């Protein structure tokens, strides 16, 4: 009997990613919760700030704080089904490289965050944002969403991998993720500030560079350390 060849990292990752997306499509849970959270948060901000329209630094802060907190919901749910239903054990029994799990989970989170990010940005421009961004400003905002979501997805997957084995899972996720995401938030809020201001502005490259650096460093860290989180 010839032994079956173990799957490559990419094909294993693709299989897990397909599983994740199918799960979310058949029983939408995380995405809807994240989107609803964003909508509720914007309404809360409207009443809490007592303002009909906001702009500049305040608008940038409201948008990104909302998206970060919504991301925490996604990060918190990332491994829950696998842990409770034995999916993690199943994966570990399979002769697939562990990096595949990291790639699949981070990609899933990245896709969720992108969808929520686009929806939230549109909703934000309707509900709260004073100035109307131009097409090029929208393109810059989209670029920022992509770079920031990539960083959140990488750090989030690493944290979700740590938190899933702890008893106080939700607490650990929040208290670990928020300080780790501060550099990313600094960069992305500073970069969005001119784009959401009256009169408008352009994207500063140094914030893009910082976001890229953050994504790169935490991507490499996640790649190097993830194996230790799923050893048993």
């Amino acid at each position, binding site marked *: 009997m010839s032994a079956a060849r173990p799957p490559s990292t990419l094909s294993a990752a693709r299989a897990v990613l397909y599983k994740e997306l199918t799960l979310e499509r058949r029983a939408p849970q995380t995405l809807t919760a994240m989107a609803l959270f964003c909508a509720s948060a914007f309404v809360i901000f409207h009443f809490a700030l007592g303002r009909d329209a906001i702009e500049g630094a305040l608008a940038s802060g409201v948008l990104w704080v909302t998206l970060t907190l919504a991301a925490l919901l996604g990060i918190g749910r990332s491994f829950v089904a696998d842990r409770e239903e034995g999916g993690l054990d199943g994966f570990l029994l399979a002769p697939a490289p562990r990096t595949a799990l990291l790639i699949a989970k981070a990609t899933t989170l990245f896709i969720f965050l992108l969808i929520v990010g686009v929806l939230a940005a549109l909703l934000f421009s309707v509900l709260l944002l004073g100035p109307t961004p131009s097409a090029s400003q929208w393109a810059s905002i989209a670029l920022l969403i992509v770079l920031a979501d990539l960083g959140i997805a990488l750090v989030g997957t690493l944290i979700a991998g740590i938190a899933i*084995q702890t*008893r106080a899972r939700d607490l*650990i996720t929040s208290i670990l993720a928020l*300080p780790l995401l*501060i550099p*990313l938030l600094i960069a992305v809020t*500073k970069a969005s500030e001119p784009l959401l201001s009256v009169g408008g502005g352009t994207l500063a490259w140094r914030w893009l560079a910082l976001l890229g650096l953050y994504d790169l460093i*935490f991507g490499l860290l996640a790649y190097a350390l993830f194996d*230790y*989180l799923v050893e048993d």
Partner: protein
Amino acid sequence: MPTTKSLYGRRLTGYAIATAIVLTASIALAFFYAPIEVDQGFSQKIFYIHVPLAIVTLGGFVFGGIFGIQYLRSGDTRHDLRSYTAIHQGLIFCIGALITGCIWAKAAWGQWWVWDEPTLVSFLIVFLLYCTYQPLRFSIEDPERQARYAAVFAVVAGVFVPVNFIAVRLASPLIHPRVLGSSGGSLPNDMRIAFYSALLGITLLFITICKYEMASKHSRAQLAALRRSLSEENDEPAAVRTAAPRIAIK
């Protein structure tokens, strides 16, 4: 396996004496030898405590990460204990750095907290991150897994520290007194001697306290092992929830 008896308490007395001498000398140098700074007056003396505390804190966190890597590579629990101790004491020194920083800010700028002061803000963020180290360890029961996850945290946080400093510094104007500028020539010689002796003193204090904590943890584990052997019960002790690394006594 090497006997761990001599490992943790080794040279503790020597370190303690050296710490006492150097710290006393550095305090004397700071107060009686270093001149009073022209702009800030006497309140600038806190610089000789605040800056060494901050540097030693960051050093402790970096070593926590390095020991974390060593633990992940070797699985040797002694590295876990070292990583734990470095981060634990680093956190305490970090509180010291934050408090002295606040006092200095009050004296120099009239406010207890200044948000456009990047180093102080970075320290607060780093402090908040490392505050999660103990709860993280505490919420994992299995000792081996606790050590492994704590090591992963130590490495991630160790890398986070410089990224955070870059981000905060980019985001705020520079008003922190740059006593050790890139040119290195901004500190007069007599101040520099006092500063470096204070740095040496605080570093020795950090090492001594770390060694003391490791020796204390180890002797407590030894005591528990002796009690077990005296009571002629070879049962494993009931699992106690703790954030501290478990030490195996042979």
